[in-house]
């Protein structure tokens, strides 16, 4: 089992004491972003994380990526505790965030990949070699230029290339296909499957249920910070027609329950 998330909760507390004078919180009240979340992602598996806006998906992904400290619970990547051994965890982590600003716009796409490759721990030559290969695969090789001249779709392709550049064992993707055209989305799904077949664990957050249905092996439905369903996409097919409609049904029922 590659990624284990056990009883993870995160409550954002408003700053207290001196911090209150210098730090601005989004609200003055504590906000429970995720509560008692438990699931796992195996090697060779693509797990979809589904939920409406504000469900807690991004907080969960950031906690996995060592960017947010959970209030309680534990996250393990293989035997490594994400909180206490974050540097070692980061060596095995590849991420693509939804924010397309997370690239250096005054560098070319290739320069971005080479830079992040070395920061991830690759030699300069290996990063360069991988950048060449991934730029070709993504159809960016002949169109490389400063990133501010990239279209949204090209930036998304570049973010994906960066996530897998250093051969991570866990790939975390936050709405990675938001800006991709249909053909690029299909190609992206194939690429993810290849990576999973190589033994990588993939956690994919998405609003596109058709994409989750086609790409993912299992799905985690999260609403108001709580997990409402964890199971195989194939099982959803069996029970209620298309998996996408079944996931929608789960979300609607969960929303009713929360009310």
């Amino acid at each position, binding site marked *: 089992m590659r990624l284990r998330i056990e009883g993870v909760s*995160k409550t*954002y*507390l408003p*700053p207290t004491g001196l*911090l209150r004078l*210098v*730090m*601005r*919180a989004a609200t003055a009240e504590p906000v429970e*972003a995720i509560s008692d979340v438990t699931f796992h992602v195996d090697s060779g598996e693509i797990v979809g994380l589904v939920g409406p806006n504000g469900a807690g998906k991004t*907080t969960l992904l*950031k906690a996995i*990526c*060592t*960017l*947010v*400290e959970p209030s309680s619970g534990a996250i393990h990547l293989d035997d490594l505790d994400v909180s206490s051994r974050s*540097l*070692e965890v*980061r*060596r095995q*982590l590849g*991420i693509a*965030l939804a*924010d397309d*600003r*997370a*690239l*250096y*716009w*005054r*560098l070319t796409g290739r*320069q971005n990949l*080479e*830079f*992040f490759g*070395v*920061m*991830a*721990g*690759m*030699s*300069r030559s*290996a990063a360069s*070699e*991988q950048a060449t*290969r991934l730029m070709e695969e993504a159809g960016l090789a002949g169109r490389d230029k*400063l990133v501010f001249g990239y279209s949204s779709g090209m930036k998304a392709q570049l973010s994906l290339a*960066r996530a*897998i550049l*250093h*051969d991570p064992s866990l790939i975390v993707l936050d709405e990675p296909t938001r800006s991709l055209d249909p053909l690029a989305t299909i190609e992206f799904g194939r690429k993810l499957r290849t990576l999973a077949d*190589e033994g990588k664990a993939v956690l994919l957050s998405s609003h596109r249920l058709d994409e989750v249905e086609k790409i993912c092996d299992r799905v985690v439905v999260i609403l108001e910070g709580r997990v409402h369903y964890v199971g195989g996409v194939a099982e959803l097919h069996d029970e209620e027609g298309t998996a996408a409609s079944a996931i929608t049904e789960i979300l609607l029922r969960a929303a009713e329950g929360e009310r």
Partner: protein
Amino acid sequence: MSTTEPLVEGPGMDWRRIGALFRRDFYVEFSYQFRIVLRYLEVVFYALIMFFISRLMGQPPELDQYEGGYFEFVMVGLAVTAFGGLGISAFNQRISEEQRLGTLEVLLTTPTRMSVFLSGSFVLPLLLTTGEVILLLVIAISTAGVGFPLGGVLISIPLWLLTIATFCAFGIMAAGVIVVTKRGDPISGPLYQLTLLFSGALFPVSVFPEAISWAAYLFPAFYGITGIREVLLAGGGWSDIAPELLILSAFTVVLVPVSLWAFSRAIRIARAAGTLGNY
């Protein structure tokens, strides 16, 4: 993925990352060519302004201990405070820039130690400021015929390095504040202004009223500027600058670890609050 070699951490990897950070900054900085030209033109104009002010001032008696006049005196002061301004502001500007670009979070998910990130991000700004300082000193030599003794230049190197290190310590603390507050760092601006006022960069501290002259001793830059002037303008040697070297070393030994601790504490606070990437 057969081309990917195993990731091996170690000092060699830290140097590679520092090199990558330098290359990144180089490409970004030189994509704004005009800014660099303006930066160096500004230095030339500033030096010329000081040159004409110094002609007005003649040879003040407070500077009798130094060779040359006010121009040489102030050029050395400005050179040290140029590094001071760099050390104080480079780190918080880098953090703000990464937050604004949205790259801070991605960088923090790489196995890069914070000290490596900070060091690597300092290399190009340090080189550019060194260029400014060399330009200042070349202008001083060419316009006023100032001659800095080679021995003095070499002896001054540890003073430069220690002075820069103390400024960097304050700069790293300021960067920690920016990680938490996002904007409004209360350290850099006031510290730079107080340093200009009290360190003797622009005028000798002997002109202060006695009641406030003690304040100069609180600023590491005062020791750096005093020592560097001693070896460049007064023919001093190692024994003359030993007290300044000792005091600056003490400042460095205390301030650098404290600043790194404060910065990592700030990262922990932002991580707990979930605001690392906000700006």
